[in-house]
């Protein structure tokens, strides 16, 4: 009996590595500390009422951002572990098994649990405010989306200490990811972690499409929609088209592993290459899903910090929509080397090249937004300016990769690694940082310290080039991705060592950002204006942080940069727009159902990971029960009385 318990424990918990034990201890200590602080200060009720059950888009956005920054930390630590292992030839820092887990985790964390939620955080913060709306179209669903993402991420992260992590790469190609190649539960953690958060992402896509189509303020025609909102719209279109494919693909892989189906197995007539096709039918649009909103952020920031209208608005919108459309026709460029024949390769090579056209046009439009403007260099703008050269070079190597026969030499090498890090970090992450710095005062009501922020920016940027430029060269020297070690005879040492230094510089840059936030919280510099940057769109017309109901009266839009034009009018001595009288505001009530239902999903996922139906079935019942409870609940909204609106506005320094 004791022995079987011992066996179970040593199988269930990940053991045998001092790094893991260290992480275990820190996880336990952090948890204890959080519980202690919440109890000591009596904050459990506050946590539950104000955060866990909230349906307010701004709070959901904040939770997304916090969670994604934690995941950025974890994914970053993984990256540094890998860079340490590769700093010298024949390193024994990580065993091959451990290295494989680390790079798999790094990829999944960064794309699905860092980039996606950080992006959704910015969606949530900015889109309803830019539209002049009181919330998103479906606040309840929005909260559910967040909690599904969160529980999916937790499930995936749990594999770190329980059962063992996935180790077949971030897209886990079969047959390696089948039971024959990956018998451990890590793969199942991957499947369910990604599946649950993916369902959340799909619902977010639906939610924001409806929000943007149906909830624009009166007068906001499509040609007056702020450009960031347009980018969200194009990204969400790609989400609703791509994510169902991911759902199916992961479900099929799970059926293979759970019920012994033969979709992607080597035997029984399965076809592993079908998985590769399917996963990239999602995976390629996913890249554009992530990067389009970053384009939106850059467009907002460039205009705001050049004190000038965005150049070529119409062609910007057209470019983004065409990217989200074309993104669906390029997936095969991820495996030109499969041997599909020249015709097929050529088709996908050309579609890939075509995407470069609208992307290139956007660069020119940003440049000419600055042209004849007045450029100031606050942190959001710095990240935008850092983005331009980085993305241009990344885009160029992307075009090189798209030439199918040349790709035969680049594919799966560090050249590819350098390329996609350059477009994903230089494109998406820089964009989200720019967005985060830009909207930070609107989210939290105080500004971030600019000096530390500039340090962080420069260290990050230099670290980036030092880290990734050598990887292009080492890739052309024959180093393939996912190598857990290499020999002295290869001649790759100098490049890898340089790259490792760059990696740690980026880590240092991240620490500067943490310092920046901590410093700014301590020496709080409140934003009393609501418009600290002198920006252009509606979100800057209301106090910072935005009140619960966003707009005391729903704005009537007359111009593209409505708030900028309003300021111009006032500056020219003309009368501001008349505001209608206050009326009670109709708001959605908080709900505990999303949180509870997400826990049920987590339970289902956990049960199915271990094939323990006695855990999974109660979870399913919980999901059904919470859905029914929501369906039967007709008491979902309330009104904020005029008095309360007046009080809130007065507190924010606005006389109504």
């Amino acid at each position, binding site marked *: 009996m004791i022995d079987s318990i011992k066996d179970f424990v040593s199988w269930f918990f990940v053991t045998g590595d001092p790094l893991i034990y260290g992480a275990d201890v820190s996880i336990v200590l952090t948890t204890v500390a959080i519980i202690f602080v919440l109890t000591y200060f009596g904050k459990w009720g506050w946590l539950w009422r104000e955060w866990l059950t909230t349906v307010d888009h701004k709070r959901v956005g904040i939770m997304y951002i916090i969670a994604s920054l934690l995941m950025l930390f974890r994914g970053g630590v993984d990256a540094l572990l890998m860079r340490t292992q590769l700093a010298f030839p024949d390193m024994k820092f990580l065993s091959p098994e451990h290295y494989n887990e680390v790079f798999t985790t790094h990829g999944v964390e960064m794309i699905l649990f860092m980039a996606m939620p950080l992006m959704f955080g910015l969606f949530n913060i900015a889109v309803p405010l830019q539209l002049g709306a*009181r919330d998103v179209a479906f606040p309840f669903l929005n909260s559910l989306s967040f909690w599904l993402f969160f529980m999916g991420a937790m499930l995936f992260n749990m594999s770190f200490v329980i059962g063992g992590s996935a180790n077949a790469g971030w897209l886990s190609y079969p047959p390696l990811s089948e039971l024959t190649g990956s018998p451990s539960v890590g793969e199942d953690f991957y499947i369910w972690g990604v599946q649950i958060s993916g369902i959340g992402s799909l619902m977010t896509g*639906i939610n924001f499409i409806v929000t943007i189509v*149906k909830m624009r303020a009166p007068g906001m025609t499509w040609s007056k929609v702020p450009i960031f909102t347009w980018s969200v719209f194009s990204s969400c279109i790609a989400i*609703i088209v791509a994510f*169902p494919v991911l759902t199916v693909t992961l479900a*099929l892989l799970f059926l293979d592993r759970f019920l*012994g189906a033969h979709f992607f197995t080597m035997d029984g007539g399965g076809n592993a290459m*079908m998985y590769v096709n399917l996963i990239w039918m999602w995976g390629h649009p996913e890249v554009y899903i992530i990067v389009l909103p970053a384009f939106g952020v850059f467009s907002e920031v460039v205009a705001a910090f050049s004190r000038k209208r965005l150049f070529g608005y119409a062609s910007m919108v057209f470019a983004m929509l065409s990217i989200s459309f074309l993104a669906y026709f390029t997936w095969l460029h991820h495996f030109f080397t499969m041997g599909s024949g020249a015709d097929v390769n050529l088709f996908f090579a050309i579609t890939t090249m075509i995407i470069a056209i609208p992307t290139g046009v956007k660069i020119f439009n940003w440049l000419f937004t600055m042209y004849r403007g007045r450029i100031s260099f606050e942190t959001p703008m710095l990240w935008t300016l850092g983005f331009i050269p980085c993305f241009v070079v990344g885009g160029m190597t992307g075009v090189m990769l798209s030439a199918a026969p040349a790709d035969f030499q680049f594919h799966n090498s560090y050249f590819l690694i350098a390329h996609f890090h350059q477009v994903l970090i230089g494109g998406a992450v820089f964009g989200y940082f720019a967005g985060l710095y830009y909207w930070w005062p609107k989210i939290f009501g105080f500004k971030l310290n600019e000096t530390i922020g500039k340090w962080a920016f420069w260290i990050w940027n230099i670290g980036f080039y030092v880290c990734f430029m050598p990887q292009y060269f080492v890739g052309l020297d024959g180093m393939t991705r996912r190598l857990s070690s290499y020999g002295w005879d290869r001649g790759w040492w100098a490049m890898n060592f340089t790259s490792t230094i760059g990696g740690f510089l980026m880590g240092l840059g991240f620490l500067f950002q943490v310092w920046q936030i901590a410093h700014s919280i301590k020496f709080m510099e409140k934003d009393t204006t609501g418009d600290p940057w002198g920006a252009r769109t509606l979100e800057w017309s209301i106090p910072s942080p935005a009140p619960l109901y966003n707009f005391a009266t729903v704005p009537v839009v007359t111009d593209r940069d409505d708030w900028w034009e309003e300021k111009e009018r006032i500056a020219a001595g003309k009368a501001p727009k008349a505001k209608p009288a206050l009326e009670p505001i109709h708001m959605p009530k908080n709900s505990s159902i999303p949180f509870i239902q997400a826990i049920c999903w987590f339970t289902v996922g956990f049960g199915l990971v271990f094939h323990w139906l006695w855990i999974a079935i109660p979870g399913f019942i919980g999901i*059904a029960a919470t859905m*029914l409870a929501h369906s039967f609940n007709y008491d979902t909204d309330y009104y904020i009385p005029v008095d309360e609106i007046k009080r809130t506005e007065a507190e924010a320094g606005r006389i109504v």
Partner: protein
Amino acid sequence: MAHAHHPSFAHEGGHEGHHDLEELRKFGFWIFLITDCILFATLFATYLVLREHTAGGPGAKEIFEMPGVIVETFILLTSSFTSGLAVLALNAGSRKGLLGWLIVTILLGACFIAMEVTEFLKLVSEGHTIHSSAFLSGFFTLVGTHGLHVSLGICWITALIIQLTRHGITPVTQRKVHITSLYWHFLDAVWIFVFTFVYLMGVR
């Protein structure tokens, strides 16, 4: 293109606001249906790829029994019709007719599911399981996913019937009837594709 009736949680109170919210939800459901379409399209694609991959086992010709499938199809088509009649009754303001047709719809749906389950059980008892070959994996997953959708629809309409008896016809229940009916018609359309691509092309 400006929306004169701003449908957010807007200032016009009472039923006006609710009405716009219900419109919003209907639109959202249409978008959801697009995603569901793509989900099924992916499953169809995998099935068509794996159709001939029988791993030496029996193919579609050997195991499909058409008479049962044709009856199933007939039942589901009829249920789609009765679901339409339910909406007509709703539009006529007849709660009784609405409830009656909804009940008929779910009963027909239940018959469909019962027949499908019987078909599956028969195949399994003959040794044709999801584990037998890629072709059967694809078959069970595609048809099973459709069946799961129908079962979900049955539970959903049942819940709606209870709500209708409690609250009567309100903007909220009205929207729910519309949405469930949309969902039901959608499943019917998917079945037509299943019938064509899986069964008819299979036994051809």
